């Protein structure tokens, strides 16, 4: 974003020209005032929908905010809402584990596949824009579509997966995928990867597009193999785009909710509950805004941590 950080010079240019001081001052002030006026609505709206709920959550997290139980509602709770996460019978720790594993697996798989996809889609060929559109559509449709699609595909009675396994005489036919702990994760991973891999590919294609073709010409003349070109040229030059894709995907996978809610509803039992799912349950099933606020704060802190780790790792290595 270097272009934005640079001081622009529409009327600002006059600030550098030899003119009377007062005139220079008014133009600069005018320019700043215009900037402030233009950005104020956006900042106000964003503060209202993020900073305000954040502050509200902080208050809630340290109070009992349970409208259904009037005699306790609004009283100070100290750390009780946070302690509840680690109380006996709490599903917080398993949900944290599920979320971390889900994030690691889905991000790794999606970035890996997306890299292959982006490389294959980067070279021009006939009908490329049609192929790109076809591959991007799963990302662009609502999550409810990808979730319902794979819920049906994995349905043992009417779905395609069972049919294909049966047809190919493979084991696993007759599995009620979403009714078993391990297999329900498989269905969730597939649905998530189907929707989000194209998104990673979109970002990586953008990264590949800005790599100048001449570099490869030079490498070819030097006799570098395709693999060497990929390792020594493509991958390092793709690093900024990879970083963006990784941060985007890691944070959104860490906050995964809707695909879980629609496909498995956290089940069977509590075996596919994630942190965001727990948070939702606290708000909309238990109407416990204190506990929900506490989970929200934990989510926010963990997201900041993830972002900080990524920034540090990428800064150190490049």
């Amino acid at each position, binding site marked *: 974003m270097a272009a934005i950080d640079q001081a622009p010079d*529409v009327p600002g240019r006059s600030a550098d020209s030899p003119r009377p001081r007062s005139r220079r001052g008014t133009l600069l002030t005018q320019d700043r005032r215009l*900037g402030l006026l233009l950005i104020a609505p956006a900042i106000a709206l964003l503060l209202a929908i993020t900073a305000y709920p954040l502050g*509200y959550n902080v208050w809630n997290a340290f109070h009992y905010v349970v409208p259904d139980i009037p005699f306790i509602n609004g009283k100070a709770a100290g750390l009780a809402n946070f302690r509840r996460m680690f109380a006996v019978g709490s599903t917080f720790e398993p949900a944290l584990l599920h979320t971390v594993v889900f994030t690691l697996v889905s991000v790794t798989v999606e970035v890996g596949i997306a890299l292959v996809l982006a490389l294959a889609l980067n070279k021009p060929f006939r009908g490329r824009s049609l192929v790109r559109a076809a591959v991007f559509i799963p990302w662009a449709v609502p999550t*409810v579509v990808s979730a*319902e699609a794979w819920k049906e595909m994995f349905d043992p009675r009417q779905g395609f997966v069972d049919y294909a396994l049966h047809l190919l005489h493979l084991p696993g036919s007759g599995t009620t995928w979403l009714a078993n702990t391990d297999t329900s994760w498989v269905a969730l991973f597939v649905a998530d990867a189907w929707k989000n891999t194209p998104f990673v590919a979109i970002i990586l294609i953008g990264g590949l597009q800005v790599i100048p073709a001449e570099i490869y010409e030079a490498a070819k003349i030097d006799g570098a193999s395709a693999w060497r070109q990929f390792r020594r040229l493509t991958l390092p030059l793709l690093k900024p785009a990879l970083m963006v894709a990784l941060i985007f995907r890691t944070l959104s996978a860490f906050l995964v909710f809707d695909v879980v809610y629609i496909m498995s509803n956290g089940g069977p039992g509590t075996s596919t509950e994630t942190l965001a799912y727990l948070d939702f349950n606290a708000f909309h099933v238990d109407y416990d805004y204190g506990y929900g606020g506490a989970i929200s704060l934990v989510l926010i802190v963990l997201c900041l941590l993830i*972002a900080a780790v990524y920034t540090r790792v990428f800064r150190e290595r490049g």
Partner: protein
Amino acid sequence: MSTLTITRDGRPTEFAAPPRRRLPTLAAAGRTVLLAVFVLVSLFPFYWMVITSFKTTADLNAGTHSLLPTSFSLSAYRNDFAQYDYWRNVLNSAIVALSTTVITVVVGSAAGYALARTRLRGKPVLLGFILVAGFFPIMAMVGPLFLTFSHAHLIDSYWTLIASYLVYTLPIAIWFLANFFSQIPVEIEEAAVVDGLTRLRALFRVVVPVAMPGVLTAAILSFILAWNDFTFALSFTQTPSHYTAPLAISNLGHSQFQVFPNMIDAAVVVVTIPIALLVLAAQRRIVSGFTSGSTK
């Protein structure tokens, strides 16, 4: 690679090394197969849902698997639209997504211009805040906003959804548009000011028309992101007639005793068509929308 390429020792490639030409074709074939698999995996679930949406409930209960359509009935669509008023949900989605898009484009363009072209103070902080807002965990918004909206009797209102959808659309639109504005030559704006237009006039007469392609890209992205929401609609609407289409889909065709995939899939087909058309028409814009500014 054209045949005009000259190899190191100065001979045209045509005479250079004929056996090496086989490699690229093999690689090309591999790539074709790979892409065919990707296209198949991407589109097959849609095909499956389309053929299911044309089945009758009786067909489904018969439980026959088939790759080809076995029947063509509009009963699922009729059920969704006539019996469950699904058209209302689609209309809600359209109203909310379009309103979000308009607000995002207007507010986002203004902010993008301010960041790209004025000497506003504290730009790095503002950009940082916008970025963080874009990554804000939306679940953390749900509880407090629900309390606030219900106190204000705003549950089931379009405004609650539009306001919360801005968290999806505004940050990315501002980043994209700021970058877009900074790439428009300053000279055209300067020339207009020299010609005697005021700054604001110059902005509307000269900059806005040039910025239209960028604004269109921001609009397309915003529409897709707003159209696809599930979490906020689930949290802030309670009456089925106020549901957005994605939320309605998760309720349609689910009775207490049975699930009707044909009804779900008919609703899915309807909600997918506008998005599919948008992607077909604007695939290039979508790539640029997500990558400009991020890959520099």
